[in-house]
């Protein structure tokens, strides 16, 4: 009986450690959107303030935790900020991949290299956005902000 209790205690404590560590990815600071942010240089993607009465199903922490379960390799940087907003991504032919989708936008520094050769003078953009569905926690997409970057 005592042995059974010890085993149960070990399992409970181990699971607690696991849960604490799993959510050990901190809560990002809330940035709060006040204006429409153009994301890409071509003007196809934007992130706009959510309407005041927007009621996402998930909190930012819940949405991030859901995404982390799908993508265990994701590492939330300590400098990340989060904003609730409306993500729009135009395909460029008049249709949309996402049209005012209620999303949490995680913004942090990540210099993802362009996946092709570039002249030496060109540096990778370093302003990364990751958009997560605010109702389901599913990833919408992630991208470097290239709007406003000057030529190298």
């Amino acid at each position: 009986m005592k042995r059974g209790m010890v085993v149960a205690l070990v399992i409970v404590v181990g699971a607690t450690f696991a849960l604490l560590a799993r959510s050990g990815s901190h809560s990002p600071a809330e940035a709060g959107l006040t204006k429409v942010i153009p994301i890409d240089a071509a003007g196809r993607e934007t992130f706009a303030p959510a309407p005041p009465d927007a009621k996402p199903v998930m909190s930012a922490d819940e949405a991030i935790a859901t995404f982390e379960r799908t993508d265990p390799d994701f590492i939330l940087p300590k400098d990340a900020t989060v904003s609730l907003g409306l993500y729009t991504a135009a395909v460029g032919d008049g249709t949309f991949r996402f049209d005012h989708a209620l999303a949490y936008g995680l913004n942090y520094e990540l210099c993802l290299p362009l996946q092709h050769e570039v002249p030496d003078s060109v540096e990778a953009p370093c302003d990364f956005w990751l958009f997560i569905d605010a109702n389901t926690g599913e990833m919408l997409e992630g991208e470097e902000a290239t709007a406003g970057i000057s030529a190298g």
Partner: protein
Amino acid sequence: VLVVGAASLIFLPGFSAQATACPNLAIDFQDEVWAPGANVNAFRAPLVFRKNGSVCSPEGTSSIWIAIQASAGTQNGGISQRGWIHASGLGYCRFWEWNDNLGNPDSDSGVQVQHCGDDADGAVRDLKVAKAYIQAEHIYTYAIYDCGTSGWSTCTLEDAGPDSSNFGNSWGAAAAEVHYGGVLCTDDMLGSQNQQVKWGGADPIQGIKELGGVWDVRPLTYQDRSICGQFVSPTHTDSQFNVYDSNT
């Protein structure tokens, strides 16, 4: 109890060993080029994805893709590409990217990642880049398509891509690319000896040369940057291209 707790930490996702730092990125790649002369109208291949290896932190990447790209640019010029990427801190994702002016970031879509964590090792997707007419702007672009896992009949237009008129001459490309840290080739290319990345095969790597033409297998030109000796391509025929990292 502490031992059990520590063991839990070890096996938790996201608690992998510290990745190698990559202060000065360098690029290495291998590719096969479909170059029938003048412009390429469309290019496609089924692509087998592999999840393995490590990339340096914070910005190391390893990717595999197909593309149509300018052949006359000083350093590739315009490009429209679709594939998979292993990116530090993001994991394994689908991606697309395009650029229409000699690689400057202000004319680049930036890397667009999607479905991070969704695809299994060994997944096969049919990927395509093809010229498309954009009615609203009265231009042709090199549009980026994902045709899923069941053939070429149903394709999703991911992005209209760049204006094709900026490309000049173009060719199709199937490529494996790695951005690793500095002098040492510390990043792993996707694929291992027994589980290789593969373009084509039973359904080959194909292109269309002229607008309105038919899908066609043509001679492919194999290029190996050969900076990182562990990146291997045992198969580079006209219809199939395999690569893997011999260190994994």
